[in-house]
């Protein structure tokens, strides 16, 4: 392995989406030798697809808005397993991070007084749930993610960040003490594999919605960072918590922003009834996403679904008028015409709950440091490893993320990780170098694919995996079905480890990338399946027929999946915000 070329950086950021670019910006400004390694050109990352906005109490729409109200909504939305110190940090630091984005040039929509436009989103309230619906989501029309990602990329250009674009991170490299000291990465264009040495390795690899057959996620969302961390032996937190977005376009899976309902749109069943009035009398269509998604599935199961098969519902927008649609939701009009073949100014959009977001991920503290837990339940920092964005589980989203909180999570915790790493580098970081055998361990997987001589095809195995997850781990779950799913996944893991990569060429070999991605999908799927099976309650996005109630006695906890033993342990939720009283768990209604 000594023939492997090595690249050395102070910090390597794996992933060029919102959180990775925000962390990189902080480090580039500090003058540290930093590189962003991304499997796609950064503006092709999935952050670009975020539509509705970034939720933050900047007190623009309502001058009296308070970040504590936002924090309350976030904790309640997360069904009380969001860490309250982390939610406190995100909501209080948020305005600073959003104003920074504006100063960088993000083209936010505006109010008449020149301040940033904010729209109502689901689960938002004033005065700790007592003051009615809030409008707290800062928006650039319905292209906020696009505007945000491009702004961050542009500012990284301004600050001369080093980019390794179209490079694929294969696996983490650990030294003899178990510290993460870099990764193995492949240049997709040339096929060259290198050893990237780094004092800080940041996994900003985003989500893994592609474990499901139907998802709003980009084709690149294959959980690469999660896969890498699991193979390196690190635990994953709350992996059973997958958000199903209420409004994915039926058949295509593409997202229709919650902002549609924020602007006044609502869901109807086949009788034309605004059914959310029954399920959430106060918030109606702007209840938490888990609540709306479940209500939709109930409507469909009870025979009030729309279409020939009665397997979806409609999102009605025509009453908003062409002007509002053109001004506030232009992207939605485009997407509806392209993927649903309808004009939302005239007809309702057929929608169905669609896998959207991974609340779980690599457990971290608010500085982005990855955490593991020992036998006695004590947290330990993993030296050298950081995570931020969707790949991380800080946890601010708990069991269900609120709309608009993901973009805030990206910038707040990307920024926090960058700041912390800068400080740590200034103080000096020294880890043992990786040995030849450490590097060889990290090379095992790519070597396996390169030497494969026959076996099953990668696209077929991927399709099977997605079908298993869709069938057994969807909006509603129950023991028998999940047990079957877990068994099937175990068999599938075996088959994937014997699958075949027919194309061994080096120049822009996308088949090899897809093979490596399949391994990661498998890791994420397994962690999800086992965590879902073991969490015997219903909370947030995790809904079980066999355990329909929330169980605060046993499960007011994070779940922690350990890959070596495939065991699920419990980890304490933080209930100690630094500057205010704890939000005690209450029955969650909207």
């Amino acid at each position, binding site marked *: 392995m000594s023939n492997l070329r090595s690249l050395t950086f102070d910090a390597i950021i794996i992933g060029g989406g919102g959180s990775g670019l925000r962390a990189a910006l902080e480090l580039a400004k500090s003058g540290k030798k930093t590189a962003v390694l991304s499997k796609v050109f950064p503006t092709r990352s999935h952050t670009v*697809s975020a539509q509705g906005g970034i939720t933050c109490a900047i007190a623009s729409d309502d001058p009296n808005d308070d970040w504590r109200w936002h924090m309350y909504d976030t904790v309640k939305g997360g069904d009380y397993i969001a860490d309250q110190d982390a939610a406190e940090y995100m909501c209080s630091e948020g305005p600073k991070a959003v104003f920074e984005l504006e100063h960088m040039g993000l083209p936010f929509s505006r109010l008449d007084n020149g301040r940033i436009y904010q729209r109502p989103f689901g689960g938002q309230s004033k005065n700790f749930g007592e003051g009615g619906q809030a409008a707290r989501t800062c928006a650039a029309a319905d292209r906020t993610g696009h505007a945000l990602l491009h702004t961050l990329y542009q500012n990284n250009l301004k600050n001369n960040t080093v980019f390794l674009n179209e490079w694929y991170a294969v696996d983490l490299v650990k030294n003899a003490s178990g510290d993460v000291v870099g990764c193995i990465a492949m240049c997709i264009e040339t096929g060259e594999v290198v050893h990237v040495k780094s004092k800080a390795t940041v996994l900003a690899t985003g989500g893994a919605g592609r474990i499901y057959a139907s998802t709003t996620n980009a084709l690149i969302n294959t959980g690469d960072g999660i896969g890498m961390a699991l193979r390196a032996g690190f635990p994953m937190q709350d992996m059973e918590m997958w958000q199903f977005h209420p409004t994915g376009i039926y058949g295509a899976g593409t997202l229709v922003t919650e902002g549609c309902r924020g602007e006044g749109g609502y869901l109807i069943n086949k009788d034309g009834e605004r059914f959310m009035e029954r399920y959430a009398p106060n918030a109606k269509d702007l209840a938490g996403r888990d609540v709306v998604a479940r209500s939709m599935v109930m409507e469909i199961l009870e025979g009030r679904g729309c279409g020939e098969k009665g397997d979806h519902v409609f999102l009605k927008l025509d009453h908003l008028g062409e002007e509002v649609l053109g001004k506030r939701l232009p992207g939605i009009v485009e997407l509806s015409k392209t993927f649903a073949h309808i004009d939302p100014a005239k007809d309702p959009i057929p929608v169905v709950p669609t896998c959207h977001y991974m609340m779980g991920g690599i457990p971290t503290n608010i500085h982005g440091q990855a955490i593991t837990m020992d036998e006695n339940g004590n947290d330990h920092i993993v030296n050298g490893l950081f995570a931020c964005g969707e790949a991380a589980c800080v946890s601010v989203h708990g069991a269900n993320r609120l709309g608009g909180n993901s973009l805030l999570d990206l910038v707040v915790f990307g920024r926090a990780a960058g700041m912390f790493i800068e400080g740590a580098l200034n103080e000096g970081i020294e880890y043992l170098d990786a040995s030849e055998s450490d590097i060889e361990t990290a090379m095992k997987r790519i070597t396996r694919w390169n030497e494969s001589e026959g076996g099953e095809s990668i696209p077929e195995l991927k399709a099977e995996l997605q079908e298993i997850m869709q069938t057994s781990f969807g909006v509603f779950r129950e023991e028998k079905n999940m047990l079957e799913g877990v068994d099937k996944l175990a068999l599938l893991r075996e088959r994937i480890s014997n699958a075949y990569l027919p194309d061994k060429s080096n120049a822009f070999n996308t088949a090899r990338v897809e093979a490596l991605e399949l391994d990661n999908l498998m890791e994420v799927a397994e962690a999800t399946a086992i965590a879902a099976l073991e969490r015997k309650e219903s909370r947030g996005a995790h809904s079980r027929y066999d355990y329909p109630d929330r169980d605060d006695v046993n499960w007011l906890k994070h779940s922690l999946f350990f890959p070596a033993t495939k065991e699920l342990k419990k980890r304490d939720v933080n209930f100690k915000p630094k500057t205010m009283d704890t939000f005690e768990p209450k029955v969650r209604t909207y």
Partner: protein
Amino acid sequence: MSNLQVSVYRYNPETDSAPYMQEFQVDTKGRDVMVLDVLHMMKEQDSGLAFRRSCREGVCGSDGMNMNGKNGLACITPLSDVVKNNKLTLRPLPGLPVIRDMVVDMGLFYKQYERIQPYLQNDTPAPAIERLQSPEERDKLDGLYECILCACCSTSCPSFWWNPEKFVGPAGLLQSYRFLADSRDTATSERLSNLEDPFSVFRCRGIMNCVAVCPKGLNPTRAIGKIREMLLADAT
């Protein structure tokens, strides 16, 4: 319904001395799928077929390519929009070096984007909150900031084909105007002085191929006209 006949540009630098067109038969089951779906079906037949893709909904700009002679995004182009006589010809974006199959080297395209300093510049101290901007001032950015850098426009522009090192190209110029038009940007005169040479802007001949192909419905030609107006106003 017979199978769709697809003819695809193939080139693998490791094995092919020259590019060639390969014929595929694709069974779309009579559905009007997107061109990207067809590419995936072909990749199942031949895993070596290389193309870029990410969001599959027309916002990331990965899968710009030339479909039956016209540039566009494969993921939001239904077959019914491009297929003639049951035949589809797919080629990489014209004018850029091909790395493999449908994958082009976009280095020159990105270099021109970087040249226009695509970031807000403001030399006044930032306020504690956001910089204020009226809705009317913000409206000027509509039709500009939405660019997804797919390169469909620049690679359909003969001026960019002939002078990719010197002519910024429609995509870069659209972004240039996005910052010139931003009420918060204070670097107007520096931006303009970087553009007044005979190539950067003035190589545009106004043939409007860029407008015809832009998958986001943007109008780079109009933005270039506005830059010319600003240059004129600044220099006379």
